[in-house]
């Protein structure tokens, strides 16, 4: 059963209590989309500003999904604006135009924003040991042997821990997908 809160009763404090628990996830998702600290910070600030202006229209259901939708749309608009600004700039180089010939379409960005956020949520639920293996292999590109040497554990343990961790992420993604479909 979903409890629907009434945001209009005290919009400002409601905004704060709704948004603050999601800031970490919003920032991490924004970083995944921009791969830059300053751009991620700007993107989250713009998202928060838009959310604040729209809080009276928010029905109180699924605040995370609501905020991620704003983040996603803000990111698409920022990318479009950046592209338009570059095209207007007479000094735009061939390299810059190539950067924006990326086949990534806004439609793909829509999917990725939620996927990245769900993977982040699933990752945060993993044990410290599982996180450590994922950080070494997926984030830092270590081989199984390198990860084993780094953690001083057998290669077989690296493999089983890593596979189990990713399976857990996969199962959580299914659950999160089901939740968002409801």
């Amino acid at each position: 059963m979903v409890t629907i809160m009434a945001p209009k009763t005290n919009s400002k404090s409601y905004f704060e209590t709704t948004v603050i628990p999601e800031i970490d996830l919003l920032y991490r998702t924004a970083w995944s989309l921009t791969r830059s600290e300053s751009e991620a910070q700007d993107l989250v600030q713009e998202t928060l500003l838009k959310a604040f202006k729209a809080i009276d229209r928010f029905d109180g259901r699924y605040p995370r999904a609501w905020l991620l939708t704003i983040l996603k749309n803000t990111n698409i608009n920022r990318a479009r604006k950046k592209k338009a600004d570059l095209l207007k700039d007479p000094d735009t180089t061939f390299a810059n135009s190539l950067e924006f010939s990326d086949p990534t379409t806004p439609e793909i960005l829509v999917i990725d924003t939620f996927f990245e956020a769900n993977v982040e949520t699933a990752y945060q639920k993993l044990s410290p040991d599982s996180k450590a293996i994922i950080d070494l292999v997926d984030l830092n590109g270590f081989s199984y042997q390198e990860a084993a040497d780094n953690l001083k554990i057998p290669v077989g343990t690296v493999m089983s821990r890593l596979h189990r961790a990713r399976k857990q992420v996969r199962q959580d993604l299914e659950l999160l997908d089901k939740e968002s479909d409801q």
Partner: protein
Amino acid sequence: MMMMRMMMRPGGMSCRKALKLMQSYLDGEVEEKLALKVAKHLNACKDCDEESLVYKKIKASLANRPPHVSQDIIDSLTDFTQNLSKS
């Protein structure tokens, strides 16, 4: 149905074996000859190929996580939110 699927060997490998090797294969940790067999299976088996795409996407997303999140940034975004509420 599941049993039948398990008994079939698209591309010369069972789905059970392909699924067991899937993550090591995607990590480039399977020796070449076996990797070719997995690739052949994925080419011939739609279900396993779809499963491999899911894992590829998960791996890519895990690789795309921020290496470190500064608490200062989270604090400053929290302050920003609180200031909006006070405005």
